[in-house]
Structures are given as C-alpha cells and as structure tokens.
C-alpha cells in the first residue's frame, strides 16, 4: 500500500501503524457485533438466546422462528410495503431532482435563476418537523392518510436531491457540451435526456441508492400517516412486533434480519455509489 504522507517509515512508525490497525480492527468488530448477533439469534431458540455465554454461531431454529412471525403477520408484507413506497419515490425523486439540478446548473442567466437557487439551498435548512403537523392535516384533508401517497408524491421534491444534482451536473457536464447540443438542434429538454442523463448516470445511481436506503429507514413520517398495520413499512412493523412480541426474541431478530437484507444487498452491490452519494453532500 502507500507509504503514507510521511514517506519512508521507521520501524517505530511501522509498529505504531500495526497497533492502530489492530485497534481499529477490534473496534470495527464491535460495530458489527449487534448485526452479527441479530443474525445468530434469528437462527436460535428462545432458550439458547437467554443462556450465558450467548450463542456466537448460527443455530437451526430459523424455520420455527419464521413460523412464529407468520403467526403474527405475513412476514414479507412490510418488505413489500416498503418497496411499494421506496421504488416509485426513488424513480420520481431522481428524475425531478436531476431535471431541476440540470436547469439550475445550465441556465444561470435566466431571470429568477438566482432566487430559485437560493431558495433551493435554503430548503436544506428546513427542519422537516416544521411541516409535520400541517402536512398531516393536509393529507387528512385530501384523503391520503393511510395510503402510500404521502410518502411518495411529496417526497419526490427533495431539496437535498436538487442541490446534489446541481453540483453534480455542474462538475461533470462541461458548458460547451450544451452549446454543441444546441448547435446540433437538441433543445433544453432534449439535451437533458440525450446528453446530460447518459453522462450523469453514476450520479443518478448514487442518488438512487441514497434515496432507497434512507426511505427504507424512514420512521417518523410513516408513523404519522400510516394507521393500519397492514400498510406498515419495515421499521414500523418491526417496532410494533418488538413491542408486542418482545418475549419471542429470536422471532423478532429474524424479522429484523429480513428487514435488513434488502438494504444490505443494495449496499453490497452499490457501495461505491452510496459513498459517492454521502460525500457529495459535503462538497458545497
């Protein structure tokens, strides 16, 4: 690997670095421990879980645990609910954000551009709790409570997404490319679809991953708008299950594990984009 910033290292420095690596390695195991134990407990019986020392390797009770959850609710229902919210929201958010980010990035001379850009940045400092109550009342008024619509349609307009796409488009699409497209007869919207979208695909993927994961993890808004247990998304269903069936810890842990699998798979496939997504927020 690299020699580090300090170039050639003395033996003392090498020992220090090895020490740091070992310490970090142990700490990282500690960070992973809760998730690992969740997986282990999900395969164990109730008795095994309450032993000391607790089991550290997988057992064979997973089928029974699954049956126990299935007695309470269809185990895949929350996952399907979460998908029904997260997928359309992600598609919409990525489209709306990239289009607006492109417009703000390209047409800097249009009247009102500066105002709209400032407003967009200001939305980042908008605490969501400010709109929570009236939003609930609004959803109630238009009859959207207890449906997925409030979690999808309004969420498509994300200031974070727009700001991010604005910086991303600005840093990846050279201005001359717009002019080349204009000479070639591709107008503003055509240039977006034929020229900009293909170029910013990595950015779109990153925003999509970030949106999927954060939507999957959303708690407060679903809690407020979803009343019916059959509509519950993963975090809501698990919270409820862990409260009502706490005593059956292996079943709760299995349900937890099932709720985690989709995001973990997504992360394993697209971790690079995900990290790019996290970082881009900080380069303003």
């Amino acid at each position, binding site marked *: 690997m690299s020699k580090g910033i300090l170039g050639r290292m003395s033996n003392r420095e090498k020992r220090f670095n090895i020490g740091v690596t070992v310490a970090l390695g142990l700490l990282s195991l500690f960070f992973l421990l809760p998730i690992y134990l969740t997986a282990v407990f999900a395969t164990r019986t109730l008795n095994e879980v309450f032993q000391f020392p607790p089991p550290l390797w997988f057992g064979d009770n997973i089928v029974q645990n699954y049956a126990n959850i299935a007695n309470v609710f269809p185990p895949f229902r929350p996952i399907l609910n979460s998908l029904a919210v997260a997928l359309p929201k992600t598609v919409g958010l990525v489209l709306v954000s990239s289009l607006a980010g492109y417009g703000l990035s390209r047409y800097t001379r249009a009247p009102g551009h500066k105002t709209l850009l400032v407003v967009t940045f200001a939305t980042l400092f908008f605490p969501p709790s400010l709109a929570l109550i009236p939003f609930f009342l609004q959803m109630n008024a238009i009859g959207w409570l207890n449906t997925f619509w409030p979690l999808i349609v309004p969420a498509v307009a994300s200031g974070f997404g727009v700001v991010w796409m604005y910086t991303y488009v600005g840093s990846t699409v050279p201005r001359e490319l717009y002019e*080349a497209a204009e000479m*070639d007869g591709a107008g503003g919207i055509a240039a977006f679809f034929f020229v900009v979208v293909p170029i910013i695909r990595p950015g779109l993927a990153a925003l999509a991953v970030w949106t999927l994961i954060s939507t999957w993890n959303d708690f407060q808004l679903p809690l407020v708008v979803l009343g019916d247990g059959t509509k519950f998304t993963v975090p809501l269903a698990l919270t409820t299950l862990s409260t009502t069936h706490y005593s059956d810890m292996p079943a709760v842990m299995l349900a937890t594990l099932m709720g985690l699998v989709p995001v973990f798979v997504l992360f394993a496939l697209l971790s690079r984009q995900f990290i790019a997504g996290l970082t881009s927020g900080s380069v303003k």
Partner: protein
Amino acid sequence: MSAIELRHITKAFGAAKVIHGVDLAIESGEFCVFVGPSGCGKSTLLRMVAGLEDVTSGDLLINDRIVNNVAPSERGLAMVFQSYALYPHMTVAGNMSFGLRMTGMSKAETERRVREAAAILQLEPLLGRKPSQLSGGQRQRVAIGRAIVRQPTAFLFDEPLSNLDAELRVQMRIEIAKLHQQLGSTMVYVTHDQVEAMTLADKIVVLRAGAVEQIGRPVDLYRDPDNLFVAGFIGSPKMNMLPATVQANNSAAVGSTVARLKLVSALTPGANVTLGIRPESLGIGDDAGDVVFQFDVSVVENLGGESIVHGRLADGTVVRFAQRGDQRSRVGEVLSLRCRADDILAFDSDGRRLR
C-alpha cells in the same frame, strides 16, 4: 454575395457593453480569422454568429437572411469547440451523426455522410470508439467531422487548437488549411495566436476591447498596420517601438539618431511620435541600411537557426532584433544597429499610423 454579414453588431451583458458595433462581411469560401488578446470579444462575436449568444443590437445576416432570432441549429452553421465538446457517452460515429439524427435525417443519408466525413479525416478505423479512447488530435478531428457532416454554410472554429501540444498544433493547423482548400467552405476561426491567424487566414479581423482595430489580408496587416496595436500584435518577435521626436523635413530623432521618414503627410516639428521597426528589419551588416543606432547587447536568445538579440539603445529604449545563427553577438557588446528608412513605420501619439 457575402456568406456572413455583420451590420453594426453590439453585445451587452446587462450594463456592460462587450461588443461595440462591429461591421464585417465574410465572403463565401473565405477563411476569416478573429484574433485579439483574451477578453477582446472575439469569442463572443463568434458565438453571436453561431447563435449561442443573442445579438443585443444590429443585424446578423447569413446568405442575405437576417438570422438574429433563428435557432443555432437552423442557421446552417457548424461549430468546432475549444474543448471539442464531444459527447462522452457516444461513439465517434454517434457524435458525428447526433445533429443529423436530431433533425430527422434518414438513416441511410446520415450513414453516408458520416462515412464521407470519416474518409476525409481518416477517421474510419475509429468510428466505433468513444472519445475517451482517442488522442487529443483524434478528438479534434472528430469535432471537425461532426461539423463536416452537416454540410454547413460556414464552419465556426473557437480556438480549436489551444488544447493541443505545440507539435500537434502545427500539424492540425496544416490539416485545417488543407481541409479549407479541399472543401472550399466559408470558415470563421477565432484564436489569440497571431501565428495561426497569419498562416490560416484569407482575412484577419483584429479585435480589441470589443471593437475592430483593422480588417485585412495577413500580409497587409503585417506590412501596413493601421495603428500601434495591430503593429504590436501581429508579428513575432514583436515590433520594436521607439519613442521619437519630429524634426524638420519629416525626420524623427531617437536619441542622437535621426531618420528621414518616407511619409506623404507633413509632420509638425516637435511632436512626439512612435517609430515601429520589425526585429527582422534590423541588422548589423553595412548593407542593412543607413539609419544607425548604437545598441548595447544585454541578452542573446539562441534559437539555433537564428538568434534574438535583446539590448538597449543609447536613450534606454529596449530593442530586439533577429540575427542569423552564424552571426553571434555577445552580451555586453556595443553594436551599430542599422535599418532602412523605408522599413520604419510611424505612429502619432494616439497610436494612429502616419502615412
């Protein structure tokens, strides 16, 4: 019939005026170069012709039709950008055909044109590659190919060679000149490099601060500049400028050297003028002329075939002259520098040429 005509074109960004009324006619088949220092408005002017910038006032005509409000893609022009502006996600063929596809041209005709352009530019083996797999010179050729397929009224080039290294730049310059001969199309070319302007142009437009300083053939601008700015901008190394005072009989004194100027008009004795002498007009041989300056050599830049000798005249004015490689002046040497009176240009105190 002019291919492109500018009638008192101005451009303002808000309150800031950047182009102050340019009149210009570019004839069909002509290679016209806009040249000037950075910020002179040459690119803005080209972009107004292209339609990428709006014309604030005045008329822009292409083939005798006013096109102020015509979309860039409908002006029948094609542009080659400084950064090439190739679509990174499309192949070479895709880049060249995109504009044609956008106008709904048939697939067969599109393909035919792309193949034709590729043949002219020797791009055939590269048609399936992406821009990232091409060298700088190849990208440049693709950018030109994208322009050729549109069979435009005129080609617009915006500093197309400035992203290339020195060797490639010379090579591409020659290719563009050949292309102009081959296609016979109108070309408008923007550069800050006066060498490119001199070598490529049929007509040079020298711009400064949003106004035209002089329009003319390269050789005319070199031999017969209208003002100090053009005189200083065209030619390398730069023309020497010597402050002088007018004496009787249209002579001018630079220190103790007095030169009889060949002018039609009569000068007022005592007036301050500037004398312009090209470095290549100065020499140290007895046959170099009969106007003689005393010259202290301070630096010698040896370029191999020739040397540029820098030094000072007796009155302190810095002067350069070009010397063949086999005549070596030494630092600290005092020379008698000569030139012909015919080779001296004179400018008044406002920088206007005195004739």
